[in-house]
């Protein structure tokens, strides 16, 4: 499903060249779940961005479903992302002017899917928010906002879901509930899941994990416990 070979990422700062990622190799099969773990600043989110085609590596290549997205231009990568990829973010990224229902329906509408609102309603029901369809993000708690974000991500039925610290902004109890929901939906939808976290408990629920230390892969595709 996803094949990454020799991915390196360097940036030039005022203090000289900085290596963010060095020679990362990984392969994730359809339906697998992979946790990218490591301390802050180890390059987890950068790797996630590159795997999702949001960012470009300085060298190396990434293929999604056999298509080398690193050789494509932004429009080509956007076309690959469309319909294939879903995201869940640490800070939820719900649009403040839209209700919960509209937030979930928006990507469906952009894809031109009929009955976008109906589908969105179903997914909000699945995350237990059917009572809060008309609420705006500011009227929802953090956990509720992330549930809306999960509904939004899964409603498009992506084949790959990228999650960036999905519970990083939530307390432990709420975080656990969100994690349960994430894995439950993931299983039901048969989605490939790649998530970034520094929570060991969350990483442990993934089928595999990859640990980064200062941009280097220190544990290569270790089997999860």
């Amino acid at each position, binding site marked *: 499903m996803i094949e990454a070979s020799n991915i390196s990422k360097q940036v030039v700062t005022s203090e000289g060249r900085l290596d963010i990622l060095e020679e990362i190799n990984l392969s994730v099969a359809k339906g697998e779940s992979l946790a990218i773990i490591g301390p802050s600043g180890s390059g987890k989110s950068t790797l996630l961005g590159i795997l999702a085609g949001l960012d470009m590596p300085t060298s190396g290549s990434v293929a999604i479903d056999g298509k080398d997205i690193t050789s494509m231009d*932004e429009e080509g990568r*956007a076309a690959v992302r469309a319909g294939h990829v879903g995201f869940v973010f640490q800070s939820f990224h719900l649009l403040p*002017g*839209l209700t919960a229902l509209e937030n979930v329906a928006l*990507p469906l509408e952009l894809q031109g899917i009929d009955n976008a609102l109906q589908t969105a309603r179903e997914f909000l029901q699945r995350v237990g928010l059917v009572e809060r369809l008309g609420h705006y993000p500011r009227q929802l708690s953090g956990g509720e906002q992330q549930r809306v974000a999960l509904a939004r991500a899964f409603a498009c039925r992506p084949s790959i879901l990228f999650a960036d610290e999905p519970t990083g902004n939530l307390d432990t109890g709420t975080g656990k509930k969100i994690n349960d929901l994430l894995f439950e939906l993931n299983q039901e939808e048969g989605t490939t899941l790649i998530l970034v976290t520094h929570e060991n408990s969350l990483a442990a629920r993934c089928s595999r994990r990859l640990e980064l230390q200062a941009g280097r892969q220190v544990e290569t595709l270790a089997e999860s416990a």
Partner: protein
Amino acid sequence: MLAFKMLLRSWRGGQLGLMFSSLLLAVAVVTSVALLAERVERALVNESSAFLAADLVVSSSVPIDPTWLERAREMGVRTAQKASFSSMTFAGDQDMHLASIKAVESSYPLRGAVKRSSVPFATDELDIEAVESGPLPGQLWVDSRLLPLLNIKLGDTIDVGDGSFEVSHILIEEPDSGSSFSAFGARILMNWSDLPASGVIQPGSRVSYRFLIASSEGREDSFNSYADWLREQLDIHDRLITPDEAQASIASTMDKGRRFLLLAGSIGVVLAGIALALASHHFANRQLLQVALFKSWGISASRVRKLYIQQILLLGIAGSVVGLLIGWGFHQLLISVVRDWLPITLPAAGSRPWITGFATGILCLLGFTLPALWHLPTQSPLAVLRRDSQAQSLSSLMRGSLGVLTVAVLLYWYSGNLYMSMAIMLGFAITAGASIGVGLVLLRLGKSYGHWMGSIWRLALSNLWRRKKPSLIQMVGFSGAIALLMIMLVVRTSLVDEWRWQLADNAPNHFLINVAAYELDGVKTLVEQRELETAGWYSMVRGRITHLKNQMPSAVAQQGHESLHRELNLSWTSALPEGNSIVQGAWWDADSVAGNNFSEGLAPVSLEEDLLHELGLALGDTIGFSVGGLTFDAVVTSTRSLNWDSMTPNFYFLFPEGYLEDYPRTHMTSLYIPAVEKLLVNDLLRSYPTVQVIELDKIIDRIRTIVSQVTRGLEMMTLMILGCGILVMFAAVSLSMRERLQESAILRTLGSTRRLILGVQWVEFTTLGLMAGLLAALGAEFAVAMLQRFMFSLPFSWHPWLWIAGPLGGGLLVGVLGVVYSRRAVVQPPLRVLNSL
């Protein structure tokens, strides 16, 4: 349609309010002004047509070419002929008078109406009747004063040339009577068909012919093509008179009023444009996350661009349509205020104001909103993960240039006046340039010296420096708005001041002319008995020009210019009369007229500047005059411009004292006669029938009403533009509000007092407003100087109050707005404030 849905959601989310209202205001201001200006202009043309008794007139010294009449008939254009001449009239064997006669065809007047009465010296409106035709064949309508002059009464018969006519009515006023001083005889209106029988017009008679034309109902196109054809037929004897020339004094007031409306409208558009640009900038910032999400979901840049362009177009159409409606409503309101000043109904406007309004909306969006949103499609999808991966917006220089270009196009297209557009643009450019240049220095100074002051000042001034880019953008917005408002207020005040004399209760409203020397004391006594004051008595002699540059004018030249074939009024004075100013040469003083510079018999003369050019003369040329059969030569020593608006006697030819006194002279003056003393005119004419009274009281009343109503209209317009200014302030204040509220909420969380937080906001905004007001005064002073000089012909003057009111007003207004806006940070719990951002 997704774009429509997104637009509705943004509207509901409150993100479009400011953009929409700015757009609405731009369109409404332009539409209301354009509608009003066009309708008033059309009314003015109609009104002026009535003063001309036609839509267009050809004045000629020879009879009208019959082919013109024939062609007009073929093309369905209405025509009337008129001949003016002086002729002796007789009643019985004893009484006679040299009358000023107009013979008119039955179709006369083509526009307006003739006022007649059956009561001599009628003043009561009930005795006066307005009719749309002249006298029937065999009848005469005469000036009241002809009755005592010829010792006759209505119904009697008098002789004109070889014909006898019944005096059937008193002639009160013809639409094209004008106020020419050249015809001193009592006026008589007769039918054109009586001319041959009377035999008054012989070869060599001095006759002025007029050919009046007007369009038939619904045949304007045909009229226009006839007028074009007619223009090509004119030769040296003929002169075309348009409605514009017919009513110069009212037209000048109206024109200045119209220019002010245009100025106010243009300023409104610029203000609304700034508000729109600021609001769009704000809107674009709030769209960045949404676009990053779209891109992460695989939406292409071109699709994002399309979605936003569709939204802008929808917004533009909605805003323009609502703006048009509001503009229409506002113009109706303005009209209800100024309705009285035109006695006729305002004609409906054409399509142009609507097109102008709608196009303004679309153009504003293209020039102000599109550049602000241009970078959105280039937003990186990575921004969903990393905040530092935001798209770079078009450079401020680029956006500024596009905005300036839009403003320039709008201003010029809208006003059609290059000077005004340039003055506003330059004033604004100076203000904006100073805001950025001087503003940066002021902000830096504030930061450097702020630490000597209290904590509030220190924090506020370093905040301003830290946020220098938004601070400068805000300063441009504030100072631009303040400068434009000041420009408008100053011009309005100067105009109202200039018009004040016309509003003065005792401005002269009657001219008494042709007062013979032996009548002077009697007339003076009559005036003094009523305790009325004159504008001073002027002496004048009547003379003709015999030579120009020592040569007799050719026959062609004589027929070509009125001054060469009729008697002229020559006057003398030692001091330059009020309202006159020397254009070329020098006014005489005691030395120059003492006889040293002029050989005997060669008199110095000062000419009105336009006449000098029309006669093909230059300074130093000689003119030969004949006065009562005696001739003398004069040399042109200066030219003057005259103020035709002043209700005091004006002369084309002025001589120094000591040259004309020996010739037979008459006297003239102007004076204010209040309505209650109006009967003085009748007493005067009964006792001194040869005196001519020119009554301007009705015209002056009309000017006065127009001026006061136009002034009220301008006040309303000023209020509307002030509304635009406040909107800009709001847009500029809200620009940095999100960041400010966030910081304030964090400070509040850390235990800062309400006093500190509001104090910091107050100092920040007041400082910005103060600086903006100071810089605005600079730009406004410059623009006003240009406008006064080139557009309103007003003298230049400094406005010290701008330099005080600008900073004070700016500081106070911006400070209050800022604090009111940021009060939320201290009245709501910090968490709620943070969640709502």
